[in-house]
């Protein structure tokens, strides 16, 4: 008999978890309202509210053991949110880099810019396609660019600690294609000179990338003349004049890609069709949004899987901690609960009261963990070698409201499981046994 009800209880918990995972936020709000209504307007609900009131008002006396639930759950939520924020920040940085009204043209079946080579003829042919926006002088806004990996010393490392940074050789039009890139310090490089402008993120990762400094690329000296900021993946790059970069890296007149600004997103299909249909060209055309989103796919997935695995294991630990604490709390109040039952309170209000207490502690834990994650990690900058590029990509962790909501949902789920078994036990304990206990 006991085993059967326990099995049923387990099945119920599993069912509740499945529903809980799929429930959207307005579902939760509706549920909370329904529950509040029940507590306010039905007799059972009012009984539950008063029993819960007693339990909650004595929480202060059980500070130590209540803190176990709160801090345990805060730990789970904090770590989970921080890890997911890392994935989010990474994906967001690459997503922001692209838009649907710019397109990138690379040689066919190149997975990334660094692997692509477009010869001089292609580079001159591509800007003649229809659908490209024109600047004030009537020139098509198309930027042929070159991407190479440059080895530079890392900041804070020994002289031998070299990292790889993505060096982009650009022309005038690069700025027109990406209006969000702005020089924030110093000035732009002069065409034909060995001068560089560096992204904010790159300046943070690598040594010597300050205006006025000279750095070595191979046997040549380059002067850093300015710092630019874009708020996306370009921040991790270093830009120089395309023809000078091509010279240094012996690339001749070839380029890696051509990025164009379209007249509007709808012009993309015609633009792509024209290039695909041109027998002189063997190129792949993508909107930059598509291109950069695809680059982030794999890494984002890995980070998410790691985050959820770690969170899950921690959640199991915290759940059993909560179970333990609530069983102890119920045992300590066994006589009190039995007295309530003896004077006529049915089982349900007792179950609800214990549940409510645990959920409240879990909610506190979730809020605390989310707050900590937000305070410590929101805007925290991290960096990694990005797939498809040849340099370090720096990005900021982003603790979004959606992530906080996910964390809160986890907290409440842990609280639910941690509370439901002790609650049912409290309600099922025979009154006479409980009164005799201790």
């Amino acid at each position, binding site marked *: 008999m006991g085993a059967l009800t326990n099995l049923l209880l387990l099945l119920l918990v599993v069912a509740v978890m499945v529903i809980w995972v799929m429930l959207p936020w307005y579902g939760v709000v509706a549920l909370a309202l329904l529950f509040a209504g029940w507590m306010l307007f039905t007799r059972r609900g009012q009984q539950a509210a008063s029993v819960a009131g007693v339990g909650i008002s004595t929480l202060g006396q059980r500070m130590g053991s209540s803190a176990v639930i709160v801090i345990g759950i805060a730990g789970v939520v904090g770590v989970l949110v921080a890890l997911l924020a890392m994935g989010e920040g990474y994906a967001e940085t690459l997503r922001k880099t692209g838009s649907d009204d710019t397109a990138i043209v690379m040689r066919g*079946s190149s997975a990334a810019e660094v692997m692509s080579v477009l010869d001089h003829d292609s580079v001159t042919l591509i800007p003649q396609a229809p659908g490209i926006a024109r600047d004030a002088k009537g020139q098509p806004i198309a930027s042929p660019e070159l991407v190479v*990996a440059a080895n530079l010393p890392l900041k804070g490392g020994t002289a031998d600690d070299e990292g790889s940074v993505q060096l982009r050789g650009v022309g005038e039009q690069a700025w027109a294609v990406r209006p969000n890139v702005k020089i924030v310090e110093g000035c732009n490089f002069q065409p034909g000179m060995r001068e560089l402008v560096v992204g904010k993120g790159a300046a943070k990762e690598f040594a010597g990338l300050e205006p006025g400094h000279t750095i070595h690329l191979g046997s040549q000296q380059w002067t850093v003349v300015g710092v630019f900021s874009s708020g996306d993946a370009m921040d991790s790059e270093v830009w120089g004049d395309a023809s000078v970069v091509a010279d240094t890296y012996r690339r001749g007149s070839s380029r890696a890609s051509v990025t164009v600004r379209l007249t509007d997103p709808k012009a993309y299909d015609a633009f792509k069709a024209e290039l695909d249909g041109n027998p002189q060209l063997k190129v792949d055309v993508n909107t930059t949004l598509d291109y950069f989103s695809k680059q982030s796919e794999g890494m984002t997935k890995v980070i998410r899987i790691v985050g959820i695995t770690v969170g899950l294991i*921690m959640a199991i*630990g915290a759940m059993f901690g909560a179970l333990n604490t609530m069983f102890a709390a119920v045992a300590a109040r066994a006589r009190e609960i039995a007295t309530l039952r003896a004077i006529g309170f049915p089982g349900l209000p007792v179950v609800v009261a214990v549940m409510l207490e645990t959920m409240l502690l879990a909610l506190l834990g979730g809020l605390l963990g989310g707050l900590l994650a937000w305070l410590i990690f929101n805007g925290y900058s991290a960096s990694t070698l990005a797939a498809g590029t040849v340099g370090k990509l720096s990005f900021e962790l982003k603790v979004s409201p959606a992530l906080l909501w996910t964390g809160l949902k986890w907290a409440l789920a842990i609280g639910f499981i941690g509370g439901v078994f002790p609650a049912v036990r409290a309600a099922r304990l025979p009154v006479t046994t409980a009164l005799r206990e201790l």
Partner: protein
Amino acid sequence: MKYLHLIWAALFRRKARTILTLVSIIAAFLLFGMLDAVRTSFNQAGQSANGAQRLQTGSKLSFIQTLPQSLEAQISQVPGVKMVTYANWFGGAYQDPHNQVFSFAVEPNYIDLYPEIEVSAAERKAFDETRTGVLVGEKLAKRFNWKVGDKIPLQSTIFPNREGSKNWTFDIVGIMHSKDKKAGGFYDQLFLLHWKYFDETTPFNRGTVGWYVTRVADVNQADRVAKAIDAISANSDHETRTQTEQAATANWMKQLADIGLIVGSIMGAVFFTLLLLSGNTMMQAVRERTSELAVLKTIGFSSHSVLAMVLAESVLLLLLGGSIGLGLATLIIPVLSAGSGGMLNLGAVSASSWVLGIVLMILIGLLVGALPALRAMRLNIVDALAGR
């Protein structure tokens, strides 16, 4: 030791509670085992004896820049160099440009420099004799269901062949196995083709190589040899940079992410939670047993032995849970690595992780037991028996 049964009985006085606490501890140490495996596998990447013996020489300008083939003869003249080989990126991808394969075009003696790679003599011979032959790592072969004798198409995301198409065809002639399963994940993913075939087929390489690998006769001479190799092309238009494979890998890993920080902060959060949790359990356990402890003292146990027994109980609790957790991690990690089809390559739980784990268990056990044990030691017999 003679009180072990007593401590054991005390530990399982309340079975349900002890088991619940144990599960929490198991979860914490399972996580510890997995994270520590990741951390050590990152730290140890390339740290093998072979890694210290091999030097990598690449372009100082950029790792994608190629070097002239004529350097080979010059490098082999450097005193202390035992063997030289070279390789190129091939940038292979199977079926979809995003399905990338670690593919290098190598000189036939490449495998001689990597004793970690195991290839049967017959397959090695077949590779040497087949122009379009390739050797593939066993995990890679498993991932795409390749067998010896298969003719497979591979796209290069960098190099077109003579017809201008980027679709290349290769014959699989052998499967490579890495000898050291723990650190060898990388070799099982590798795809090796002939440099000569590659160079003759693509119009873009023109006899250049991506990087040189040198085996030095004496590890202690590695630094001197590296400097001598770099001196050959100093002030030329193809300056080189030579590092031991160990240093190069460590450098590369450092760029991937600050693994130490992330792993460290997760472990901090886990252990703080754990500390609180088991500390609370121990407090409860001692509180409940006040009268029992008083009886122990009455029949002649000294205050110090009561202190020791409570401490031993909490250490035992941690050791029990911790060992199960670490044991689980040891079992799960190989399964996870295998299940992901080579996508994840976690290291194994090493002996050093176990030592660190056990030290942590004892420390945490002492820490959480300290307060209740002190309480038990200071217990006044008369008050405790009277329930005051």
